[in-house]
């Protein structure tokens, strides 16, 4: 297992290197002069030249990349063009809000989604199934920004129970985590249901029923455990996506997270921040993939042997 992990980790290095080149080029080939944007609409050519020299943008592209790579390897991610803050600090202060929001949103939505999916799959064709799927389709279709604003209007403006937004105590988490989780829970429910229905048709489930295993045990042990493999894959993917920052929810709830930082940085052509964020997201996905692989083994010992 350890050997396998080390091999997997080593395999990620070329991937990350390729990502760094891609990100660097992509950002530099975007139209728009960052020096012009930084200097502002009413800047004079002197102002712009000063900004360009200050940012090192007057040097050849290869030199800029090598400098960037060398510094990244030493974890010197540079300074934000926009705020002069170090990129590490800038991302650091937004990482926790995004991580915590992701964890809370995933926690409730995976539990609710899998629960609804199992109920729906086990009672296929009954009213529970139909009601659950109506709920799930609504959850997928409901636009996040609108749901967020409706929740703010009800729970903050009319009832005064919860703050309208911002990062703070547990009250601040309720509305954004709920809004963010709705879509995930809905997708999760649909996915669990179809995986569940598929497994129910398998021979070993029929065998289990035939030999008189209690229905509850058939559902939770024989069926669900096997249906969990695609669910874990999906959970990993969703987790990775949400860690990239949920732009809509962060915007509606004024959440100081990574998604909004990325959007702001793109608008401002804040190269060091864009590069660091995309690199971070790539690392997160690589890490999540590793964890997902390990979890497969935990759920299904057969995978561990391969």
């Amino acid at each position, binding site marked *: 297992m350890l050997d396998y992990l080390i091999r997997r980790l080593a395999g990620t290095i070329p991937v990350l290197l390729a990502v760094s080149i891609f990100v660097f080029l992509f950002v530099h080939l975007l139209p728009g002069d960052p020096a012009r944007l930084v*200097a502002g*609409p009413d800047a*004079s050519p002197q102002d712009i030249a000063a900004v360009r020299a200050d940012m090192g943008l007057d040097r050849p592209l290869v030199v800029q990349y090598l400098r960037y790579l060398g510094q990244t390897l030493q974890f010197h991610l540079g300074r934000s063009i926009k705020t002069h803050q170090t990129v590490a600090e800038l991302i650091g202060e937004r990482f926790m809000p995004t991580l915590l929001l992701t964890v809370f949103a995933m926690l409730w939505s995976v539990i609710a989604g899998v629960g609804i999916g199992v109920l729906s799959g086990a009672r296929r064709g009954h009213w529970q199934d139909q009601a659950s799927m109506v709920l799930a389709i609504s959850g997928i279709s409901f636009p996040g920004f609108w749901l967020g604003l409706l929740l*703010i209007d009800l729970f903050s403006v009319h009832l005064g*129970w919860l703050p*309208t937004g911002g990062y703070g105590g547990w009250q601040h988490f309720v509305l954004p985590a709920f809004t963010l989780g709705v879509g995930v829970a809905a997708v999760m429910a649909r996915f669990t249901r179809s995986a569940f229905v598929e497994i129910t048709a398998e021979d070993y489930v029929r065998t289990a029923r035939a030999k008189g295993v209690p229905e509850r045990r058939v559902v939770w042990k024989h069926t669900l455990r096997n249906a969990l493999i695609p669910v874990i894959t999906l959970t990993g993917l969703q987790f990775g996506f949400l860690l990239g920052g949920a732009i809509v929810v962060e*915007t509606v709830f004024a959440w100081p997270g990574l998604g909004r930082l990325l959007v702001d940085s793109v608008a401002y052509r804040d190269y060091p921040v864009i590069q660091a964020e995309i690199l971070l997201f790539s690392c997160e996905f690589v890490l999540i993939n590793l964890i997902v692989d390990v979890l497969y083994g935990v759920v299904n010992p057969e995978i561990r042997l391969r």
Partner: protein
Amino acid sequence: MASIFPRMLLAASLALGAAGGAHAAKDLVVGVPDNLTGLDPADLNDNLSQSAARLMFEGLYMLDEHMKLQPQLAESYEASEDAKEFVFHLRHGVTFHDGTPFNAAAVKFSFDRAGNPENHLKRQSLFVMIDHTDVVDDYTVKVVLKYPFGAFVNDIAHPGALIVSPKSVQEYGKEVTRHPSGTGPYQFVSWSADTLKLKKNEHYWKPGLPKIDTITYRGVPENGARIAMLQTGEAQFIYPVPPEMIKSLEHSPTITVFNEPSIFTRYVALNNLRKPFNDPRVREALNYAVDKQAFAKVVFSGYSDPMDSPMPPLLGFYQKQGSYPYDPAKAKALLAEAGYPNGFEATLTGGNNTLVQRGMQFVQQQLAAVGVTLKVEPLEAGVLTAKMFNVQKPEDASIVMLYAGWSSSTGDADWGMRPMLYTKAFPPVLANLAWYSNPVTDAAIEEGLSTTDPSKRAGAYAKAQAQVWKDAPWIFLGVDHNLAAYSKKLHGAFIRPDQQFHLTADADLE
């Protein structure tokens, strides 16, 4: 639902009543749309950060809520007649937040630092006319200019010329943008992610002021969420409020709507070097083809005034020129006379925010009625600026019609005309995106800068405005209103015509 709702409301009001006990501290929360970019006054170019900096820093002169010049750290000044030498007499007994004294050396330090090209500060252009700054004595400073610059006092009333503590710069270098130290009524506490916190300066030079204990700037990008913050009392001042949402706040008993004209003009810059816009009759025709009243109503829900001069009314030396009344028949006749009886096709380029797109679509519809077919091209900010300014020769310009806007950040007529209407301001130098060039206008703009005598300057800008109005290098559209909203408990808070949040020194929160 009907029966349960009042009960829920009751529970909520009880909960609120319990939470809102007696608290003596006066805490002002301001809800703004973006994060700040920094707090080093010489290195800022966005209204939001500048207005935050102005709570902590002061300049020799300032613009009050009506854009009128007021002395701040200077008590008075004398200018030479040729507008080349300015002597400022400074206020005594003022200290920076870090405890060091404010004096002539600090003024010289701030100006030298901001104007030194090697420091790469974004507001360097405000200081290019300065030859040198002399400390005459502790409280007298003399600025000598390289060439006459009649708008100099306005120039240094700009937030880019706020006075910084020399010690703070020596201590923090470039990082001073996160460790600001000025002489203003509020001092820095913290700035992380999208929240800036300030507290009262206990040693402020105006006795008994300020009255507010703490100020928090919170970045809330969503318009609806910002309004909700004001409604719940989480914020006491929010801006901006989009025109279509202001109505929902007008009848609230606890909220005051702020609705005042700005100095932000919107116009379509026509490429005056390019066919068909090189024909004055075509430019005139397009001005008659657009109904400016309807523009205000449709695009800004009425919160905009038609332009009646190239400059907005609240800018110094403004003079009303007249109007191009809506007259599609006349527009068609002029187009026919210019050789375009069936109109023509062109592309209208602009930004991609909602208000800009709505404005461009409006112009498109209006011009369609006189046979001019427009393709609307909304672009992302980075792409747009590249297209506007990556131009070496005027003939290479790729934009023929630009939906544009301008606000004079110094509050003076010079910056309200020269960057967009002066021949030497062709891109990439400045923003003359109409490629408009008329020796009469150029001479008047130069004359306006050559003296400090207000009556001579007024005469010069009257000439410039009349000439531009006649030449119609733009389709003149409208002047935006500033829209904001605040709690009735708050007094002394404004959005200044240049769109900056402005708190008077005696601002108070009940």
